């Protein structure tokens, strides 16, 4: 079955051209011109991945992203200006799984979508992983703490699983980027660091004093076990 992409882009000509190219690459494309429309489509239709321009008239992309995240763990790729570092960090903070920079090109998007959707499939390990009170259940695609679902996104879950399965050894940034995001990011620190921050907010008792997801200066991260 073809992957269904929700394309949220206010410029009708870009939307049409990109839609055409995605269609040509065997994606099924749903289009939305505004944030409100996007939420509406996401409610009504089955969507596999959302491609979200942050610059939207009316309800902006950050709000749409936060709203979508509140409703579930639908994979979100945000579209930002290349040099807008703050936007990238902010977008990741409100729940985006990945980002691409403008201008959008179908072939580049396709690579990202493939990598992101691979993450949704169960990780290689099927055995539950335990880190303190946190339990990762790859088979069910969730992580729990004291039995409660932590409501991690797929990316957060994958990140946690990679750290825990390393058994407390340091996992370098490059390794994490390659294993979680699945393709070569040349060490984009924002993507990883913001996700770590998000993860800590969900799994740590005190995110400002992390005990489970630890930073190893100059090297990477490790699980505190």
């Amino acid at each position: 079955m073809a992957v269904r992409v929700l394309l949220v882009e206010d410029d009708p000509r870009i939307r049409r051209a990109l839609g055409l190219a995605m269609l040509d690459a065997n994606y099924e494309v749903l289009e939305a011109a505004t944030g409100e429309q996007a939420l509406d489509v996401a409610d009504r239709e089955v969507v596999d991945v959302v491609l979200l321009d942050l610059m939207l008239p009316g309800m902006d992309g950050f709000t749409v992203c936060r709203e979508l995240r509140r409703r579930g763990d639908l994979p979100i790729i945000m579209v930002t200006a290349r040099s807008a570092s703050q936007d990238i960090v902010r977008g990741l903070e409100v729940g985006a799984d990945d980002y691409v920079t403008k201008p959008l090109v179908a072939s580049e998007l396709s690579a990202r979508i493939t990598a992101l959707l691979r993450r949704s499939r169960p990780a290689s390990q099927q055995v539950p992983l335990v880190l303190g009170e946190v339990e990762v259940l790859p088979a069910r695609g969730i992580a729990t703490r004291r039995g409660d679902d932590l409501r991690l996104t797929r990316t957060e879950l994958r990140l946690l699983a990679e750290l825990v399965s390393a058994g407390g050894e340091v996992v370098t940034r490059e390794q994490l980027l390659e294993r979680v995001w699945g393709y070569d990011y040349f060490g984009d620190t924002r993507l990883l660091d913001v996700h770590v921050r998000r993860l800590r907010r969900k799994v740590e008792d005190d995110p400002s004093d992390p005990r489970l997801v630890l930073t190893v200066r100059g090297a990477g991260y490790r699980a505190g076990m």
Partner: protein
Amino acid sequence: MVAFGVSAVAVSAVFALVTWSLASQYLLRQREQSTLIQATSNARVVDLAVSEKDPTLPQLLTGLVSTPDSAVFVRLGGGWLSSAHAVDRVEPVELPRGVLDAVHNGATARQRVTIDGAPVMVVGLPMRRVAGHYLQVFPLRELDRTYRFLSSTLLLGTVMTGLLGALVGRWVSSRALRPLTELNDAAARVAAGNLAVRLPIGDDPDLAPLARTFNGTTESLQRRVERDARFAGDVSHELRSPVTTMVNALSVLQARRAELPPTAQQAVDLLVTDLTRFRSTVDDLLEISTVDQGRSELHCERLDLVDLVEQSTRSVRGGLRVEHSGARPQVLADRRRLERVIVNLVDNAERHGGGLVRLAVSGGEGRARVEVDDAGPGVRAVDRERVFERFARGSAARRELDDAGSGLGLALAAQHVSLHGGELWVQDRPGGGARFVVQLAQAHAGQHVDAAEGSQ
């Protein structure tokens, strides 16, 4: 300052000379008068003693002499009488001829002479009661000493005044010139590219308008530069939407190239080439104008330069070997920008330099370097600054190449390096070709920006 000193010296020298001549003449006149009065009264006493045949005349003569320097001579008939002291000191023959002659002719006379190396005043006058001459030698040593003291004091005063004048001149001129120095500094900073420089207006009625004009000029210059930068940014921003549309629409055509007739295939190829270049120009222009507008931020982290160069070039011919001497210099840098610098330099070597021949990383003396060597003809000395200018190769030359790049690659690299406080230059590679060198400050041991916190 020098002029001030010189004029101070000149004025005080004139004063000193006038003072000297007036004072010395006055002192001399005083001395002359006093000696004349003394000699006249002494002559009268001697005159009386001689006329009364006073037997104590020799004692009297000696008594008239107040100091050892002075002497009294009395000529009676053909012989000389003198004070006791005078005998071994002054001989009558040493007395000046002019005075002797004048006295002989019945006149009073005086003359300054030097006897035995000492300055003296000889006063002579004829005696009235007896036929004879009275001559007295007065020492001028005191006067001479006074002269010397006076002259040295005046000279010292002149020198001091000169020095003082120079100091005051320096102080005054630096005070008076300070606004001009500030203006000069400010103008230099503006010339160096800092258009935010403003001068304090101050309350000097002569200088305030100048400062105001200067501030007005730099302000309008700054506005203009900002407007130009914003314009370039706006243009590229506006162009990006249609470029995105075209790139995507064209990618559909490209994917179905095989289904097209040959002429349409060639047309698609031409479009793809130029659109790719156009896209990268628009991207680079947007990025460069973001920096121009001062809206770019650096997200620095501690990076291993060898790793970074290796990663940056991964897409080029499946990765390139990076030469390094074992040392792995660390830098604090914005990863994305530094990668861009390396990619652009490698790209430049591949496109315009006849291909990349060597990539090297080295460190030492607090600096880290990346060298990118190519096999081209090198860059002529006159062009070594120009290659880093925007669209330096000229659009005509660029269009001859099918795959010419944005024309902004080196300019963008230079801008990114200078944002890091580093340097980028081109030199000759030993053995021909060009060597582009990126030089950055090496991170100190322990200097670290934790990216997780640093990016916020």
